């Protein structure tokens, strides 16, 4: 309950931003705010994995892509040619298919977004388990390289398979109707509604994770981060906790992928790229690793600036630089610098100096 209350100020900020943009006639910012919220959802998931459990992942864009691509492909690829197969028949009788017409009036049979997103997210979870069991036994550089390798395989697969649109990606992904009247889509008229869907989802995720890290699980994770062996000796099932966190963060990434893909109406191979994974790691690092609020704040702010094109063609360079500078000078994140405290100390110092001179 307390956790619920702690996100209330954020909710107020979210509503405040809505009113501010509508008052200043800058509602177009809401589009990027919506997208940033989805990226931030992935980032807070990764934050728990990296900051609390201490396991680096350079492959989270892969999970994002699994969610996004599967959902996109299932809801756009026509199943008419396979109409008579048993699987399609089964799906149809389960009410998971939608039929309609495409642009040229041809009959179209696709998986409904609800079913597709369920399939996509569970696929990500299953893959996370399969990958996670062996990968999480590794440490340090080995873990980094293994997850990086996983990310590259996913990138290669979406780039090579025609089903995933090769270099073009998948476009014209239909809207995801959550309930009647509430749909995730890039339609101009749905902008405000989507802004609240995205932020609602992010707040929900945040409450969940805040509760998690303050529970027995969270304490176990911090124990693992401090020392694997010590946690083991205290009776913490380290490998199970690591795996659960890995899967949880993969699910967060996949959900972000599903929603953002429906919101953008498409997905391209760059979403699966190594640079994206590195960027997520960079943002978690800037936020302060074991700092959910920092991750959320930086996730929203940096993604928003990047999406607005503030960094121009230096986009990737900015994230590389941020990564280095933060790791060199403030390995505990930007918020750990405690600027107010330093400023106070500096002012006091100056005052004393002046008094000393007088």
């Amino acid at each position, binding site marked *: 309950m307390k956790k619920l209350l702690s996100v209330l100020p954020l909710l107020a900020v979210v509503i405040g931003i809505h009113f501010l943009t509508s008052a200043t006639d800058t509602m177009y910012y809401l589009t990027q705010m919506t997208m940033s919220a989805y990226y931030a959802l992935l980032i807070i998931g990764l934050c728990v994995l990296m900051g609390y459990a*201490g396991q*680096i992942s*350079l492959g989270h864009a892969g999970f994002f892509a699994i969610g996004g691509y599967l959902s996109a492909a299932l809801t756009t690829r026509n199943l008419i040619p396979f109409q008579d197969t048993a699987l399609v028949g089964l799906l149809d009788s389960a009410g998971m298919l939608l039929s309609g017409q495409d642009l040229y009036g041809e009959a179209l049979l696709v998986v409904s977004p609800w079913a597709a997103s369920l399939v996509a997210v569970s696929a990500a979870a299953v893959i996370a388990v399969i990958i996670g069991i*062996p*990968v999480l*036994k*590794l*440490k*340090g*550089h*080995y873990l*980094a*390289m*293994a997850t*990086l*390798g*996983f990310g*590259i*395989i996913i990138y*290669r*697969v979406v*780039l*090579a398979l025609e089903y995933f649109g090769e270099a073009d990606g998948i476009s014209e992904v239909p809207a995801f109707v959550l309930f009647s009247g509430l749909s995730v889509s890039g339609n101009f008229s749905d902008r405000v509604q989507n802004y609240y869907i995205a932020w609602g989802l992010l707040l929900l995720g945040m409450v969940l994770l805040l509760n998690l890290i303050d529970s027995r699980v969270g304490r176990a994770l911090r124990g693992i981060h401090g020392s694997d062996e010590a946690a083991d000796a205290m009776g913490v099932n380290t490998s199970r906790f690591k795996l659960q966190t890995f899967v949880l963060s993969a699910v967060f990434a996949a959900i972000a992928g599903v929603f953002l893909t429906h919101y953008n109406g498409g997905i391209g191979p760059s979403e699966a790229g*190594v*640079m994206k994974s*590195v960027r997520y*790691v*960079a943002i978690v*690092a800037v936020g302060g690793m074991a700092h959910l609020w920092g991750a959320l704040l930086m996730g929203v702010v940096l993604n928003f600036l990047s999406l607005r094109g503030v960094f121009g*063609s*230096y986009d*990737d*360079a900015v*994230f*590389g*630089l*941020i*990564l*280095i500078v933060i*790791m*060199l000078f403030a*390995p505990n994140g930007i918020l750990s610098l405690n600027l107010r405290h330093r400023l106070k100390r500096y002012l006091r110092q100056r005052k004393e100096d002046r008094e000393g001179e007088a």
Partner: protein
Amino acid sequence: MTTELFIQYLMAGITYGSIYAIVAIGFNIIYNTTGIINFAQGEFVMFGGMIAITLLQFMSLPLAIASSVVITMLIGALIEICFIRWLKSPSVLRMIIITIGISILSREVAVHIWGESIRSLPYFVGNEISSVGVLGARVSPQVFWVVAASAIMVVCLGIFFKTTSVGREMRACASNRKAATLCGINTRNMVTLSFVLSAGIGALAGCVMSPITYSQYDMGTGLAIKGFTVAILGGLGSSGGAVAAGLLLGILEAFSVSVVPLAFQDAISIAILLTILFVRPQGLFGSKEAAGLSEF
């Protein structure tokens, strides 16, 4: 498969394999002195090729390659001095993230200097269509340059580490850093030197491979992954293992083209990496104790 085709695949495999081996040795040199994996290793190869291509406009090919190697060595030294030298016992996670950042920055610098176009050095001897007959197969003469250059580098490094006093100091630093410091070896300089060395061999590899594989700003990541695969496969820290594993991976990759589509070629070597990491993290030739001694 005919004999000619077999030889063709084999030569292609050996060419790529020797490049992977050189990148892996670059990883090893830095790993041995610092205990960190330099994720920016592939970028040294890229810089070597790109700088040589640019310098070629002003000077002859051998001079351009030599200058490019020297400049890349300077870049390597600069990176170490700016980002790594003054850190006091950083955690592995921190070092990973810093070298990843360096790799991104290097790539971005390259794309802003040279653009996204694919370039290459001219063939050292002859041109694209000249070839040498090997048991009935036709092989580009550049292949021999690559293999010879890699072999010479491996031999020279071996001699350097075994016989010269600086080489011995570096090895002392690798086996026990504290003890080396106590013996009066300036370990910090050894770390800088290891960056210089691995930048240099990376750059030379980048030059000799450029006519065949071309140079592009983003070639580094792929090479780094393959080089790391090879380094692990051969046992982290072992040069001999790196050569054997490099050739093995190169040949496997070359023959895999006849079975699976080219688009999945990278995926195959990564799958090999993952399998090795899960099954034999100490490498094919490394002993269990050696793996236990390392810091992970």
